């Protein structure tokens, strides 16, 4: 089939949004897989009836550094959902050369709309800092380095004064569907055969 889509001129913006969104989602996936607070995969989402968000809290200092092994199940599940709702894998595996920005833009709507829907459905996100970006902020002594990353001229003792470059994001609620025992999360999308 050949179609001649007409696209708005803001294609670069669309790409930017899309790229940013993919990053966020992959981060979220990692968070689910390796995050300190994540449940093990079979009980992910069990907390449904629990009232209120459960904020991600700072890590307790541990006696010896232990690296957790990565359980990819939740990450695979998220990839599967992204493929199903947003055709994410299909899109990333396309070779974009030879297609016009307008064509790519039309498809990116599918990815954007689907990803956004999925994000709203399963996650609640909040910025870490509420100040305006590019405004001056102060980090008092004892600030949480996991939530605030200082860069540049990092010398002396807190309080630190600096410019807020990015507000940060944190997940306040993550509620992926529970998977049935024996369900293979490596199947991101089944092959479809119409009879």
């Amino acid at each position, binding site marked *: *089939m*050949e*179609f001649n*889509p007409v696209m708005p001129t803001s294609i670069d913006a669309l790409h930017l949004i899309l790229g940013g969104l993919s990053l966020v989602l992959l981060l979220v996936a990692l968070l689910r897989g390796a995050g300190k607070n994540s449940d093990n995969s079979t009980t992910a989402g069990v907390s449904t*009836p629990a009232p209120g968000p459960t904020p991600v809290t700072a890590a307790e200092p541990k006696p010896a550094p232990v690296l957790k092994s990565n359980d990819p199940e939740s990450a695979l599940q998220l990839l599967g959902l992204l493929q199903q709702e947003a*055709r994410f894998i299909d899109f990333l595996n396309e070779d974009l050369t030879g297609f016009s920005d307008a064509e790519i833009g*039309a498809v990116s709507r599918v990815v954007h709309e689907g990803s956004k829907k999925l994000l709203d459905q399963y996650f609640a996100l909040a910025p870490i800092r509420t100040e305006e970006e590019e405004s001056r902020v102060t980090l008092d002594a004892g600030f949480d380095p996991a939530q605030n990353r200082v860069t540049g001229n990092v010398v002396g003792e807190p309080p630190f004064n600096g410019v807020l470059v990015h507000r940060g994001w944190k997940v306040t609620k993550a509620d992926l*569907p529970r998977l*049935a025992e024996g*369900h293979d999360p490596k199947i991101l999308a089944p092959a479809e055969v119409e009879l």
Partner: protein
Amino acid sequence: MSEGSRYSVGIDLGTTNSVLAYLDATPSDADSAAQAADSGNPTEQVLAVDQLTQPGAVEARAQLPSFLYQAHVAEVSATDLSLPWGESGSQLVGYAARFLGAKTPMRLVASAKSWLCHSGVDRRSPLLPLNAPDDVARISPLAASAAYLNHLKCAWNHRFPEHPLEQQEITLTVPASFDPAARDLTAEAARSIGLNRLTLLEEPQAALYSWVNRSGDQWREQVSVGDVVLVVDIGGGTTDLSLVAVTEQDGNLELNRIAVGDHILLGGDNMDLALAYRVKAKLDAEGKALQPWQIQALTHGCRDAKEALLGDAELDAVPMVVPSRGSKLLGSTLRTELTREEVEQTLVDGFFPLVGIAEHPRQQPRGALTQMGLPYAQDAGVTRHLAAFLCRQANAAQDFFGSAQDFIKPTAVLFNGGVLKAPKLAQRLMAVINGWLQQAGAEPARLLDGADLDLAVARGAAYYGYVRQGHGVRIRGGLASAYYVGIESAMPAVPGMPPPLQALCVAPFGMEEGTETTPGAQEFGLVVGEPVTFRFFGSTVRRDDQPGMLLDYWSDEELQELPPIQASLPAEGRSAGEVVAVTLAARVNELGTLCLEAIPRDGAQRWQVEFDVRDQ
């Protein structure tokens, strides 16, 4: 209250979505009791129902789509059908059913509720999915309704093992327009899965209860004596109308449900489909032919686009993209757009046309009764249906406020159902109603706000269980119809003419639950051991007919023929073939359903008259 019974549970068994809400009827400690007394009103909660959203994935969502999918043995593996309380078998209910059914409609059972009130079919016989091939298991509309209820029961019992649903006080909602047979069947579906502590409640009433509870004590300030509240409930598949009058008794405000509308099979799904076909026509004109799966995806896309366009006055068009089915997206994705103008023409003008109060739905005589299928509304104009309802019920408020009118003039309007979440549609509907009122020289009606349009019915039903325990205001209603049995009058036969029919009133309009009529004087001869069928009629407009009244003449508008009813006398103690003279008495039981009973002249026994006759 017995052990284990703690919650008042409301179930909205909808045409497209079912919802369960509950309310703790016995606050566990003194604090919360005091709190409840302070605020005056308890809050209901909505159960997040565990369900398959995909094969192998379980999620808890507030709504359970009322769909059932008969999966093929090879289609999904048994492990992918696990629910928290066990495996579901090959029958899937909820989101996963809708998801799978979208691509394989022949295995999907949908709109079971509409079939439940379709008198043209045997509602206990396995007929759904309609026209399915032989190797697809079929179930009856009754069994499908029971399956949805059973899923809700399992989800509840998994969540509250200490308080099984069977032991809770349950209020199940039905459309106000359901006839006695459909009400009976709904109750039967609930009883078949062990839900015996049951009351039925009309959906628009439930929506109003929800509003009353949400408004707290404020509701008394928002309405006053003399108000007539019009409840408009437009759901996914049906439109339901009711009128409630506000009166006063001993200084307290009272609510009286004074009229209900016909059962109109017209709702949000029709609107999405109408938009999809509009877009399809546009693409056809561009020479792009659509395949069935693309139309389906388009319908889905139209729902989102519609909400965006009707919600945001700034938007002029929403792009719509139908991706290819295969893994190659680029080059084969279909792109179009839905404009504000198209949505307004199709939905606002198509479904909510600006019409005069005298413009009523165009009815074409239906084809032969042999056709199988749901009796969808032929006229999509919701406002025309509304105009017809208000005119037909012109005298409904006469008992309360006197003065005959050419149509009943609501002073307040309460909306319910997902369709009316769209501000544009809600505004148009209000504008049409207020246009009628203005022309008649009446004050414009107020919109009662604060309603939660998707979940109000279940919430209100849960609250109703609490009201039944003696808290808060109760809506008085009773039967929304008067009921009549047809009698062939004993006249000399005229060749070629059917014997003239008389209608005997057996149950009056407004008959309240827990009451019964005295047996009438009219006797019927029943043959022992043989079922006898009567023609049966209902009227929502003849409000003053008393039981025993015999009508010789009525207009088609006044009396509507319902499916026939059947009385059969067991042969015990009598010889088969004997003719026994009986009279008919009506009773409205605590459940809220009508019972007709045949009482022999000696009065010792009573036999139930069946509304749902199996072999027609």
